[in-house]
Structure formats: structure tokens, C-alpha cells
């Protein structure tokens, strides 16, 4: 029990340090950004026609003249009290916006995460089993092709094929244009989420499949598999009983590590499909100098990624008997 408590305290401390670091770097980068918040958001012409008083008011609103250290400390003390501040662009609490956007994104991200994980595992195992033969060569060819394709380009291609040429799916946004919120059906939302999710899945598969393939080859070359063969176990039983069992541990790590890639990829994919998710909000906040919103999004996504890795750590303990039983004994 004490062991477990220490484990969680240590993880918590690590997460706090990580989030501090991430927010500090984000803040520093925003300060170094050449974008002038007033010119970007108000415009040169509008600024020129304003009185000095009005400009000063705006400068105060965007925090132009406040020293960076003071702004950061102000943001930090707010966060410590659970207040992530107000978004400067949307004029709403940051947490409200993140909540809305995450609600939109969570389906896209979740689908892409599960689909790429499952398909990647399947392809990786197949490639490993058929190493050097035709299925392996096809899978590797596909993975290398996808890995060297930029995600946004793939998104454009899908958009072109499925929305423009075939007309099967909507071109963008998360709901049909000009429809009341109450009239939007679940199916409408799914139809809008398909393409961004597909983009993220297709790109996510390559990484997982290639890593799984390597692990599967390692497993199949192990002494344990040789002995299983020597004992007359059939090929299919060896793959199902020994191969999958031993590939499960690295697969868990890969699956949870891919959360960060999926979230990273969503920034581009959502931009292409004008999908109002978290990724798109991050781009808007970054380009519009909306410091509180950007910091909020960065910190929350970093926390999600951290939680994913933590979950992998914990699952390892459940799946791997060497950890599970070793812990029970100590």
C-alpha cells in the first residue's frame, strides 16, 4: 500500500514538473513570436483610425505592455486556483472552450486511436509472420509510403476523392451548414468526423505496424518459439499462443505512446477539414496570440498524453506476470 502511494506521489510530481515545463516553453515561444496581437486581430487600418486611448485599452487587453514574467506568474497563480483564464479571442472561459472542442475531437481522436492501433497490430503481426514474403513486402511498402506522406497532403487527397469527386462525404465542419443544433442528428456528426478520423488512422497505422513487425520477428526468433516448434506445436498455435502473448506488452506501449501522435496529427487534419476540434482551436489560438487559450490547450493535451503513458505503465503491471508477481512478493 505504501509502495503504491509512493508510486502515485512520484508520478504526480513528475506530471506537475512536466506541465510546468511545457507551459513555460509554450509561453516563451509565444513571447518570441513576431506576431503583434493588435495588428493581427484588429488590423492596421482599424488601429490607424483609433484614438490613443482606445489603442491603450486594447494593448492592456492583449497584455502587450505587461512584462512576460509577470504575465506568466499571473497565469500560473490563476491555474493553481483552477482558473485557466478567459480566451482573448472567444471571450469565454478557456476551460469552456476546451470542453466544447474536446467534445468534438474526442470521437475523431478515439476512433483514429483505436482503429490505427487495431489495424496496426494486425498488419504488424502479419508482416512479422510472413517476413520476407509477399504479404510482408506489401505491408512494408504501404507503411513506408504512408510514413513519407505528409498528413495534411493525405487529408487533401481524401477530401478531393471522397468529398469533391465522389461526393459521399461533407467537405468540412462538424455539422451541416445552416442547420439548427437541435436538428443535427448523430449520423450527421459521424459523417463529418469520418474523413479527419480516417486521415489520422491511415497515418497512425504505419508507425504501429512497423514497430509491431519488428517485435513479432524478435519474438518468433526467440528460443521459446524454437522449443515450441521442437515440441510439435503447430504454426498457428505458436503464433496465437506464444506470438501474440509476447507481442502484447510492446503493443500496449506503442498504443498508448501513439496518443501523442494522434493529437499532434489532429492539429493538421482538423485544419484541412475545418473541423472545429481542439487541434483547430490550437492553431487559431497560436496565430491569434490568444495566450490563455493556447496555454490551456497545451497543458491539457500534455496531461492527456502523460495519462496515456501512465495507463500503459499500469497495464504492464496487470499483463506482465514478472511485474505483477514480483510486486506481490516484495
Amino acid at each position, binding site marked *: 500500500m505504501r509502495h503504491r502511494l509512493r508510486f502515485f506521489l512520484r508520478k504526480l510530481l513528475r506530471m506537475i514538473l512536466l506541465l510546468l515545463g511545457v507551459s513555460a516553453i509554450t509561453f516563451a515561444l509565444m513571447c518570441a513570436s513576431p506576431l503583434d496581437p493588435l495588428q493581427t486581430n484588429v488590423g492596421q487600418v482599424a488601429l490607424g483610425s483609433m484614438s490613443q486611448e482606445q489603442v491603450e485599452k486594447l494593448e492592456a487587453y492583449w497584455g502587450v505592455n505587461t512584462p512576460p514574467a509577470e504575465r506568466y506568474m499571473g497565469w500560473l497563480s490563476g491555474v493553481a486556483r483552477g482558473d485557466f483564464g478567459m480566451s482573448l479571442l472567444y471571450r469565454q472561459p478557456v476551460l469552456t472552450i476546451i470542453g466544447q472542442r474536446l467534445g468534438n475531437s474526442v470521437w475523431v481522436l478515439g476512433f483514429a486511436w483505436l482503429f490505427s492501433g487495431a489495424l496496426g497490430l494486425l498488419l504488424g503481426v502479419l508482416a512479422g509472420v510472413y517476413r*520476407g514474403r509477399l504479404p510482408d513486402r506489401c505491408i512494408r511498402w504501404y507503411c513506408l509510403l504512408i510514413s513519407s506522406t505528409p498528413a495534411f497532403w493525405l487529408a487533401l487527397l481524401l477530401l478531393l476523392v471522397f468529398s469533391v469527386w465522389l461526393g459521399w462525404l461533407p467537405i468540412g465542419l462538424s455539422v451541416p451548414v445552416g442547420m439548427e443544433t437541435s436538428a443535427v442528428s448523430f449520423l450527421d456528426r459521424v459523417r463529418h468526423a469520418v474523413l479527419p478520423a480516417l486521415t489520422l488512422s491511415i497515418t497512425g497505422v504505419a508507425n504501429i505496424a512497423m514497430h509491431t513487425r519488428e517485435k513479432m520477428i524478435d519474438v518468433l*526468433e*526467440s*528460443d*521459446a518459439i*524454437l*522449443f*515450441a*516448434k*521442437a*515440441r*510439435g*506445436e503447430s504454426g498457428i*498455435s505458436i503464433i496465437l*499462443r*506464444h506470438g501474440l*502473448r*509476447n507481442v*502484447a*506488452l510492446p503493443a500496449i506501449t506503442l498504443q498508448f505512446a501513439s496518443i501523442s501522435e494522434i493529437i499532434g496529427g489532429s492539429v493538421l487534419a482538423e485544419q484541412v477539414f475545418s473541423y472545429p476540434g481542439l487541434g483547430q482551436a490550437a492553431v487559431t489560438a497560436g496565430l491569434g496570440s490568444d495566450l490563455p487559450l493556447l496555454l490551456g490547450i497545451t497543458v491539457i493535451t500534455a496531461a492527456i498524453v502523460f495519462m496515456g503513458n501512465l495507463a500503459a505503465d499500469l497495464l504492464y503491471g496487470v499483463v*506482465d*506476470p*514478472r511485474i505483477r*508477481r514480483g510486486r506481490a512478493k516484495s
Partner: protein
Amino acid sequence: MEPILQIQHVSIDFTQYESRKGTSRRCLQVIRDLSLTLYPGQVMAVVGASGSGKSLLAHGILHILPYNSHMRGEILYNGEPLTKERAKRLRGREIVLIPQGVTYLDPLMKVGAQIRKGRRDEASRRMSREALGRYGLSPDTEDLYPFELSGGMARRVLIAAATVEKPRFVIADEPTPGLDTVSAGRILAHLREIADAGAGVLLITHDLELALRIADRVAVFYAGETIEDAAASDFADPSLLRHPFTKALWHAMPGHGFRTIAGAQPYPGTAERGCPFVSSCVDCVDKCREAEEIAPRYVRGGWVRCLRVQQDTTEAGTENGDLGEGMEE
């Protein structure tokens, strides 16, 4: 008596990609022209240094060699060719392997499930408990994972796993390294029991002293070749041995002076021609270096590949083959 296993002129080679670009392929011969005959109830020890290709012999017999290797020659089991299909059918049942150590068990699966190969019926459970019991392991062992076994326990589990189905031919590949003398002695005693129960046992080891404790015959492996095939009793006196390397090996044993052998064993497949032992031999002449091939000679009830030993004229009928024939005493 009908031999259970006859290995006739078996060679195993590996295809390797040399040069950094991986463009030029070369064949590396690891086992060269090996012939052995094993009878039921007999323990034959194959003794050779680490890296001399002994384990590959075991994998070759079972047809589980890595994909980049190739085996030539003939293996007869019970008088019939042991083809890939036949080996597939027999391995794990009649022909079993006792591997080197705990790494040959699936680290994530309980011992019991591995011994039973996934079967869950009552008969299989009883058989696995019996097998464990034969080697002094309690039924609780079934619920342990490989990492929870001690070195000695792991070897006994491996023997139990191999002998669940009462095999007729057992290949034990280095079953004792890393064990203390008492545990190693126990493992060897178990192998002797298996042979005494009527199975043929091929004991692959680098430890001549241990092998002599239970073996009936000893085949000495040097740089991928069997340079001598002798009765275990010949090792009582070095003058009964035939090959200079076997004699040197005898003198290198702790009880016999502990004298080291000068020079290093060439890697298998590196010797183009002549006797592989030539650089360390005290007795070699020019023709030992130049001979294209040194055929085995039948000498005093054993076989030797050495030009300096006179072949017995009486029983030299079988030209260049059937090594180990005529060893029935």
C-alpha cells in the same frame, strides 16, 4: 538391434551476406560430413567446444533450422528417412528436445500450460503432473511462471516437458551448464534413466567429464567435423584413444593433468582443406595439410579422421561410411 537414428554424411551450411553492402553471399559450412549411429537404450554424447555447431545438429534432426540454413545428407529414424513432414509429425511426441535453459520457455506463460501445450483436459493435466512428479517437482510448479524457477528446477521442468509423452529418441542440448555439480549429476542421472527405459539419448555437451559419467559412446566434434567416435570406455586410458585432439582433450581434463591445448579451434567452415586440427597437432605431417578430404577410418572399434592412424585391416570393409557401425559389444 535396429539403430534408432542413423545420421549419414550430413552437412549443414548457412547463407551469409558478407561485405557491408550485403551484395556478396557466401555459404558457411557449420557441420561437415557428419555420420552417427544411435541405438535404443544408448546414450551418445556429442562433445565439442562452444560455437562448433553442435546445437545446429539438434535443430537439423528436428527440421527446425533457421530459414537461412540448409541441410544435406540423410537422417534415418527407425530405418526410414526422417523427412520434414515426418519430423513434423514425430517431434514433441516420439522425438523430443531438451533445450539448454529457461529461455526456451515462454516467459509469459505458466509452466503447466506450456507442458500441456494448451490442452486443458483431465488426462493432459494428469500426465503433466506425473511428468513433473517424476523429476521431483510438486504439482504447484504448474502455476509458476518461468522466471520463478531456479536454474535446477528449470532444467527439470524442461525434461518433464520433453518426456510427457514417453519419447523414443531424446536430444539433450547442453542440459547442464550453470548448474552445480549435484544438480548437474541429477539431470544426467535422469537422462540415463530415460535411456535405460529404452529410448535413445543424444547428449550434446561441451563437458567431456560430465558426458563420460553416463555416455556409452562419445563423438568428438572439432570445427564442424566429428574427428572421432569412440566407446566411452576408451576414455579410461589415453592410449585407447585415436585422434591427437581427443588425446589432448583427455589430458586437458582436471583429473588428468589439466594441460591446455595450444592454439585455437578454427571456426567451422573456415578450413578449406586438410585436417582442421593441423595448427595445434603435435603429430602432423605435410599430407595432413594438403589432403583434400580426410575420410573416417575404422580403428579398434571406433572411427577416426586422422591420416596418422593406421586403419584396422580386418574390418575395413565399409568404405568411408556408416560411422559407428560395428560398435555393438
